[in-house]
């Protein structure tokens, strides 16, 4: 297993960081999070064209860059650090992995080049109003009459679901249960009978939508009734990706809180000289570095096809969830009163920590999954 980044990867990271620092200062985050779309189409297109970010994971055969989860993890970590408001996770992680895992060769050729070029945004809709993340809880149905599939049901908590040009949907054959009868479908964002409602989210930087399908025409993605395995694979990949995004945010919070306590004077001395503050800062460093190790390991495990993968993916998510939230709690505390104000930026990451903790299953959920998959 690889335990360090190559010099090329480190250079890549610096380049992405510079670009995101220029494009996504918190003034821009605050402006975009207040909009309904949650991102700026023209700005996002430009950034993506410059850096080719949505092409990263897509193989060269589909006009992508053919990199792995290691590189994708770097980009996500930097985006988490800068709270970039853009449909990157939904497009380049959710939809892309689902299409790569489930699609036929022909479908990949049709769909992935458009994602790689940044022409379209996309997402994956699997959760429903129950908020659960497992295949068994899917109730949306797909019925066929002739060659046409039609979807009935409601998806919720769909990342960027209100703006996505292409939606990958997990649905089941009527009457089927559990892992049986599941299929992926693709739907145009503008499809007839599709009702898209923006949800008001606690973390305003991460937009979510409820999608109601009333006989919406859909195209089958991959093999009918065989989506359980590619969905499981997709879930593993997306929680590892999220863990990498999370450690970037956690590190930013830690750094900002540290810079603040070094500047703040009380009782005639720097509050960074109080042991109670120093102990907290040291514990935060331990939490964040441990979570980074787990996230990096899991990304390398995806690239190298590690046997321990299902367990390791959950381990990375559970570890990142606890570390990010704990760091956010400490960061607000270290700022004191100002840390609870709207004008101070800490709450932006606090809320991202909270939303990331829950998204795709919380730490308890992933610890249980980890135990089920533990091989040793």
């Amino acid at each position: 297993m690889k335990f360090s980044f190559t010099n090329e990867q480190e250079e890549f990271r610096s380049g992405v960081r510079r670009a995101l620092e220029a494009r996504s200062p918190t003034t821009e985050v605050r402006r975009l999070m207040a909009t309904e779309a949650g991102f700026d189409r023209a700005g996002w297109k430009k950034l993506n064209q410059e850096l080719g970010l949505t092409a990263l994971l897509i193989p060269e055969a589909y006009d992508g860059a053919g990199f792995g989860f290691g590189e994708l993890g770097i980009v996500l970590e930097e985006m988490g650090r800068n709270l970039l408001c853009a449909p990157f996770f939904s497009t380049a992680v959710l939809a892309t992995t689902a299409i790569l895992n489930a699609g036929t060769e022909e479908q990949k050729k049709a769909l992935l080049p458009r994602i790689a070029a940044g022409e379209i945004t996309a997402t994956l809709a699997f959760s429903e109003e129950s908020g659960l993340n497992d295949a068994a809880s899917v109730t949306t149905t797909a019925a066929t009459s002739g060659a046409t599939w039609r979807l009935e049901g409601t998806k919720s908590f769909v990342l960027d679901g209100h703006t996505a040009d292409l939606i990958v949907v997990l649905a089941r054959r009527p009457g089927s249960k559990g892992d049986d009868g599941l299929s992926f479908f693709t739907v145009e964002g503008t499809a007839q009978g599709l009702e898209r409602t923006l949800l008001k989210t606690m973390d305003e930087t991460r937009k979510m939508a409820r999608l109601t399908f009333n006989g919406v025409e859909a195209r089958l993605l991959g093999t009918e009734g065989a989506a359980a395995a590619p969905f499981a694979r997709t879930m593993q990949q997306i929680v590892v990706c999220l863990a990498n995004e999370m450690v970037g945010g956690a590190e930013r919070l830690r750094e900002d809180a540290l810079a603040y306590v070094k500047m703040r004077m009380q009782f005639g001395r720097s509050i960074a000289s109080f042991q109670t503050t120093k102990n907290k800062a040291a514990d935060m460093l331990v939490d964040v570095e441990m979570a980074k190790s787990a996230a990096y390991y899991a990304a390398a495990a995806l690239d190298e096809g590690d046997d321990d993968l299902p367990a390791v993916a959950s381990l990375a998510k559970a570890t990142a969830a606890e570390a990010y939230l704990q760091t956010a709690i400490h960061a607000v505390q270290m700022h004191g009163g100002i840390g609870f104000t709207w004008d101070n930026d800490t709450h932006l990451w606090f809320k991202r920590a909270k939303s990331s903790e829950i998204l795709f299953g919380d730490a308890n959920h992933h610890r249980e999954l980890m135990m089920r998959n533990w091989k040793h």
Partner: protein
Amino acid sequence: MTDPTEDSVRSDVRAWLKDNWDPSLGLVEWRLKLCESGWGAPHWPRQWYGRDLPVKFNAIVDEEFARIGAIGVAKAGIRTLAAATILAHGTDLHKEKFLKRILTGEDTWCQLFSEPGSGSDMAGAVTRADKQGNKWIINGQKVWTTSAHKAHWGLLLARANWDVPKHKGLAYFILDMKQPGVQVHPLRQMNYHASFNQVFFTDAIVEPEFLVSDVGDGWTVATTTLMHERRGADGLRSWAQATDAKGRIYEEERAEIATTMEPYKWYPQRAGRVDLVVSRARETGKITDPVIRQEIARLLCMSKASEWTARRARAAQDQGRPQGPEGSLGKLASSNVARQAARVHTYLTGSDALLSGKDSPMDGVIAEILVSVPATSIAGGTDEIQRNIISERVLKMPKEPSVDTTKPFKDVPRNIVSS
């Protein structure tokens, strides 16, 4: 002469071993040959039993020794720290008298630093060194002294000047442990073992030539010893694996290892025995309990993340990159892991965790875990000190204002003892 390369070192040591390795020799006899040839401590100076080779070649020399099962010099224990300190700060007399017998393993050493009144604050030592005539007279008490009951020599930090600030008044001595003024008593721990000692000095004598540092520089010398102590912890673990090879020299080495490792036999339990958790959960049937599954998973997350963090630090080091923060966190992380492991072992064991010794599961191992884990967050730098080191050296946070570093040590408040 050309600079040594990996290949030249390998072929040199291989050729020398081919001509000289003889398992029928006695352990000391063989190690004397190592001293003569310099292959026992190749990074040491030629003049002092080494070969002046860069330290990076040690691994190659070790490999060649291991390849044919040849035994090396005595490495484990405080003797390594003594050797490093003497090489860096000792006089020619010290080097002459001590280094060879350290390498052969004939002399055993102990480190007389910690005191009942100064643990984390080691520079606050109050063991006195007073000059009478040309000799030094030592009075006071040291504690947590590994192997003091066996040691021939001690590395002693003592206060020789009380009128200057604390770091300035210390001197560093080599103390003859086998004298009437030195009394050694075992120190019993909460886990029933007695791996350490208390050492009492009553007018113990140090001859003038065994002063290592000038009065005032003792702290600097002690820092050298401590630096090597930190590095040495890893070496001990890899060294202490006895082979089962037959022959006199191997038997002598096995006996040496057994003696050296005796104080450390409960150390695996101190770390929490994460390795036992999943199998114990299966055996006890608790693996199906959802609450306990959460706690086990928490432990595995911590333990794996900590292992991978250490691997990251090593990988960065191997690539010649400056060490990132990940290299400073292991000690603190291991405390967290050990505590969580003890918690999980308690849940898994239930009422049987009330028992000890043979009545406790696994022939007492579980009980030993539960009462040994508290040592992890204290020994070798408490969690509190680790946090200070991390916050000050890694995060560059300011020190607490100090109240004892500028005034004469005699005016610094000491422990309040009620009468």
